[in-house]
């Protein structure tokens, strides 16, 4: 795939590449573990895994400034962790523990870690696009050169909030990067069956006076260059970008979904394009040793092991948590 602005960018630092690799592995290990724990009924509710889509979250995680902001969806474990949020607290949150990222209140679909710039996971499709634009407005108003990065799916390009956010962000030249992770499906329905244009985001960029940006979301280097470029433009006051990163889920839409509606050959072809496998090959080509990679892989696995153990040991939220944090005063009182 083409059209990335980053094509002519200088080569990527070894350290950056290893950081992306480590990040992708952590996201992969974490979510695979979460999946196992769902299957063992150690985690209740639902979950939406980004297995197979890790390159996008990891590349942005590495490319962003620590005071930039991430806004993501119910499929937001990866984006939240990629900013540095605690894996233990994230796992504890999935398990409904009191020490979870949001104390058990938000759950899998609402991971948040404000101290890491992970400003929330939004479970209603499209809503967070205008909210991310609002953070960008605040950066613009306060002159802080912070950037808001907003991740969403292909399906989200068909909802009204997408349109309103894009138009306003472009008109006001807000420092926001909209990243459409086009994994070809909105839940179980192929995006092509319900969308008037073949490229749900890239083919709409011109409606907001923006350039189309279509990239291979399974190519970590390409994602990184694209991210850097969009972040730089936003920081320089050149306004928003709309990036369409084409990718694919390894599994179903959510916990309950085996994903059988996807043609076998399509799945097989995409499994060949796993972003982590590809990156490993690239890193070896670039001279990183097998040993070094194995070390990183072990590190990621151990980090997830530790997080899992710690999360399992965390207590359940106490009953008095129920009516806390509706208001700033810490409580939920609506009357005197």
């Amino acid at each position: 795939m083409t059209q990335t602005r980053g094509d002519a960018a200088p080569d990527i630092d070894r350290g950056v590449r290893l950081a992306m690799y480590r990040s992708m592995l952590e996201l992969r290990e974490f979510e695979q573990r979460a999946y196992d724990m769902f299957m063992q009924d150690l985690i209740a509710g639902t979950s939406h895994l980004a297995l197979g889509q890790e390159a996008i979250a990891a590349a942005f995680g590495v490319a962003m400034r620590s005071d930039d902001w991430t806004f993501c969806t119910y499929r937001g474990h990866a984006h939240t962790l990629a900013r540095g949020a605690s894996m233990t607290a994230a796992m504890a949150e999935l398990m409904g523990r009191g020490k979870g990222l949001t104390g058990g209140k938000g759950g899998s679909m609402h991971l948040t870690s404000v101290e890491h710039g992970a400003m929330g996971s939004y479970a209603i499709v499209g809503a967070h696009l205008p909210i991310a634009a609002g953070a960008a407005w605040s950066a613009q108003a306060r002159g802080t050169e912070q950037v808001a990065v907003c991740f969403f799916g292909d399906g989200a390009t068909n909802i009204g909030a997408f349109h309103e956010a894009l138009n306003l962000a472009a008109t006001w030249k807000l420092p926001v990067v909209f990243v459409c992770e086009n994994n070809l499906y909105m839940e179980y329905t192929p995006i092509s069956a319900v969308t008037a244009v073949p490229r749900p985001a890239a083919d709409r960029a011109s409606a907001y006076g923006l350039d189309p940006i279509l990239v291979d979301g399974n190519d970590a280097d390409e994602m990184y260059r694209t991210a850097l470029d969009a972040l730089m433009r936003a920081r320089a006051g050149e306004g928003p970008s709309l990036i369409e990163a084409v990718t694919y889920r390894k599994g179903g839409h959510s916990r309950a979904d085996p994903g059988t509606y996807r043609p076998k050959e399509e799945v097989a072809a995409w499994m060949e394009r796993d972003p982590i496998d590809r990156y490993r090959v690239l890193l070896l080509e670039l001279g990183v040793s097998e040993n070094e990679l194995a070390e990183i892989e072990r590190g990621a696995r151990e980090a997830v092991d530790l997080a899992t153990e710690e999360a399992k040991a965390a207590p359940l939220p106490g009953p008095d948590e129920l009516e806390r944090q509706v208001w700033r005063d810490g409580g939920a009182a609506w009357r005197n």
Partner: protein
Amino acid sequence: MAELTYRGAVAHGIAQEMERDDRVYFIGEDVAAAGGVFKTTGGLLERFGPERVRDTPISEEAIVGLVMGAAMTGLRPIGELMFSDFLATCWDIVANQIAKTRYMTDGQVELPLVLRTANGGGLRFGAQHSQSLENWAMAIPGLKVVAPSTPTDVVGLLAASVRDPDPVVFFEHKGLYAAKEDVPEGEIVDELGTAKIRREGDDLTIVALAAMVPRALEAAELLAAEHGISATVIDVRSLVPLDTRTILDSVRHTTRLATVEENPRLCGWGAEIVSIVAEECIWSLDGPVVRITTPHIPLPSASALEDLAIPSVNKIVESVTKMMV
């Protein structure tokens, strides 16, 4: 008599009406090829074809607007909103357009449509996928509002909703989808605006809706067995039209009233019923009423918290015994 789940009753009810009336069409997200994310609409595409059963984009305003425009021009469409929480994303079309258009046009425009949606908590889906929003619809003049608690009622009230000439918002409770029941053979058609007395008692009237009905019934058994309190349990089923007669008659008989609502505390249907009683038969009351509700909070995700939030059997028993002192 065949055993049917509440989940299965949805497809059964839709099929009954699509079979009967070829103006009935059905659209929504992932409803056709995939059979619905709650597996409530499986088989309809195969049976009625891609013209009448159709997948939409994630465009709730378009779904509901489409249903409205089709209803005023000769179809009797059913639209699905996957979770009732998403009503908020198309609330203008529901509350400002669908509800008001018959009145604003002095009856020129008629809207025989049904919006079905999965409502309610208990599945650890968190604050944006667990709400009980029947009150939102009840507060809007021009909408009928239905919320069945049993598989048979799903079929019968859905049929009544599809046949109704006015717009109906039909709240299915996702916590009940697995519930089973023997359902009569043949066509089932019920009537909107009729509450059902699920249990007869003399000391107290408990009014409940949807997933709170089985809990109220269980609580009533405990109240009888352990506290010697004999409760009537009324399943409201339809908030608009509201069967106030059944409720008021019962309160006049039992002299005490409790309502059990899953929705947050303020301005719920419980408040409406309590107010009607306070206006129309306050002298029949032998003591204060009690509204048992979820606290006025967004719903938490963790099991440990969600179970505390939504009225439980124990909570009902406790609140009633405290009030009956």
